[in-house]
């Protein structure tokens, strides 16, 4: 199968039903994408597939064939997403950090200059147990607002 991840083309051989999460973590060694629940509830494994935020634990790898995938490791390539990383750091939006990659990827799929309500709706699929979400809103507003 051919996957484009963070702008780089990969040819991999994996069982078509293998979770995209496992393909990224095991075959491509991109361990920045995390597993929190394995059933699409916590959003820790969120990546962008052709610009859309999805839970990579629910996506069979074959479905991602031919698409462009963005993971946390690719954020630094884009100045806008670099700004997001910097804001997460400066605003203390990353505490334990396990939800952070997925949270940032969901933020990447928000409309430009999102309102607070758009941020809340856009991040509703990403659970964070540390922050109470306050500093995450601050970071997203700072970077994208």
């Amino acid at each position: 199968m051919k996957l484009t991840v963070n702008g780089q083309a990969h040819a991999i051989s994996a069982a078509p039903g293998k979770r995209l999460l496992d393909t990224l973590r095991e075959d491509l060694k991109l361990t920045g994408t995390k597993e929190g629940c394995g059933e699409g509830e916590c959003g820790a494994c969120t990546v962008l597939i052709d610009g859309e935020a999805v839970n990579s634990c629910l996506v069979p790898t074959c479905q991602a064939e031919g698409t462009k995938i963005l993971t946390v490791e690719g954020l630094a390539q884009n100045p806008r997403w670099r700004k997001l990383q910097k804001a997460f750091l400066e605003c203390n939006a990353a505490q334990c950090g396990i939800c952070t990659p997925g949270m940032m990827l969901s933020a990447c799929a928000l409309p430009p200059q999102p309102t607070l309500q758009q941020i809340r709706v856009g991040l509703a699929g990403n659970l964070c147990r540390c922050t109470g979400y306050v500093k995450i809103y601050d970071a997203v507003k700072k970077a994208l607002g």
Partner: protein
Amino acid sequence: MSKVKNRRLKVVGKRVPRTEGADKVTGRARYIDDMQFDHMIYGATVRTTIPRGRIVSVERDTAFDWSGFTWVDHRDIPGKNIVAMIVEDQPFLAVDRVEHQTEPVALLAHADRARLAEGLKAVRITYQEEPPVLDFETATEVLKELSIARGDLAAGLALADKIIEGTYRTGHQEQLYIETNGMIALPGANGFPEGVTAYGSMQCPYYVVKALEKLFRLDRERIRVVQTTTGGGFGGKEEYPSIVAGHACLLARKAGVPVKMIYERHEDLIATTKRHPSIITWRAGVKSDGTLTAIDIDMRLDGGAYMTLSPVVLSRAAIHATGPYRTPSVRIRGRVMKTNTPPNGAFRGFGAPQSQFAAEVHMDRIAEVMGIDPIELRRRNLFQTGDTTATGQVLHDRVSADEVLDKALAKHRVAHRRSKKTKKLAGTGIAMFFHGSGFTGGGEVRLASRAGVELLPDGVRLLVGSTEIGQGTRTMLAQIVAESLELPYAFVKTIDPDTAQVPDSGPTVASRTCMIVGTILQRASAKLRIELGPYKSGDDFKKRAKALLKKRGTVVIIDQYEKPGEIEWNDETYQGDAYGAYAWGCNLADVEIDPLTYEARCTAFTSVIDIGRAIHPLLAEGQIEGGTLQGIGWALFEDVVMKNGVMQNANLTNYIIPTTLDAPHIAVEIVENPYPNGPFGAKGVGECPIDGPAAAIVNAIRDASGARLDAIPATPERIMKVLG
């Protein structure tokens, strides 16, 4: 230290970047599941499926292909089959008794995870079942009992114009760190092939060391434990990681290769510790002006099947049970009951959220019965500086309960615009609380924690066993050391706690790390300054550091906890200075209830807490905001449904924690009344934010709808039942 107080602080109080922050926003941070070792295989746990009885046999299906598997049961344990904790009652692997569902019986490992899952299914345990005890309210076996008494209770009650009673219940709560429990064990440690090494997600590396010492009958130098980047703990990674590490090490020793054990979410939910459920009865003597003349509290906690940390949870629950209120006579009786359910354990707040929930809902009940405004009633009873607590502790340091109340009322008005006309029922509730920092009573003396600094040519390295679990420990301790040495923050380097390199700084729990370990590091830094002699600048420091290192080779200064002279505690009478310092807090919650669905939503929340000094204001706010939302979840949604002694809703679809759409706007204000014995005045901050939210919300629900809930979570079903 007085010199330090008088100069302007340059690092403490500043919003420096987190030491490990860049790794976390780039995906570089390595959590345990991100780590690989050569020849590593995977481990899993065979667990009991009945709540109580006797194991008749454990059989492996003979038709199944067991090649490539490693099997471990209790017969493989070289040392003592006991999880080292307060008492010796819990086995690493069950022998013949079953005390709860999900109890570990055997361990399997295999290089292929799919095969491993099939192997788990091919193990059959047969039992001789016994009737389980599942309800702690009617249970009879007491795991731990304590009582605190001061003054003459009968006389206090006789002075009252009214005696007001109430009974309050809280349920289990799951810590729900987003990273589940996990370890990788390696055979061998520190050059000893017979040793064991464990890497993993944990709060207390030296608890794991102690557990492995006993399990393997090894001395300390043959054990190495390394904390990896940890995706949240909240108490849930205080004691349970000892079990995961023990299991992984047993497998690794037998298989002779590294073994990775990562719990899936379902397993983590059904098998690991949770917040103790509670039932607490209050009896308060009240004068007609609202003054409390007597408080009589009886509490029962559900300990589950083994003791774990229940005695100290009970102790903290009892000491905080009066809430921040004065009374001339008080009696607090508490018991932890044994049930055939998975053991409950540490969770942020450690009993104090349960007991202060009861206290604060009862204060509103008293206000209502006496016809006094709830805020006014609190004002008339709040602790003042110089007052005496239930354990006879005289509050010499500034008590700021009044101050946080005033500030919360002002902040709540300014920070939240009251929502416009709504068809929903709206109301506001209050809760006040206090929280002791550090181990209870003589606990810190017994821990005798150690921490220190190592001189480097270009700075210093922290040598500390305290763990970064998201709260900002590493950054905050680095700030304390930088400030103590009057060096830039960047001069202080940190490392992953690795017991081969760092001393035992005590567990990372109990809101103790900043106040206790921070003070030890402050003292170690002061001693290093004496060794170095005066320096004028960072460059000057480097010159002196290089010269000293050239002369001595290495310069390491490890210091140890010293009890401040004025703290006295008597474990026999349970009287004395229960904690060195208390944080004081006030919460206000706005709640709306849908009159059709009875769904309650928290729409606005204010938390004002006196934490002595915010070493890093942004991190401290993060603690308060996060703890607040965790408390709101406990109040409204988080419901562990137990059936036959095991959690039924063990997934994130049915165990609901707050999302962005459930979270209210949270306004935080930090009050800083410095504690003289804390580093730069700091007390603890980690736990206190979760003490108040549940009561504030339940009181708001009463204000909004007239529904008086005596139990949480305040689900629509519960609200509907009360409103009829």
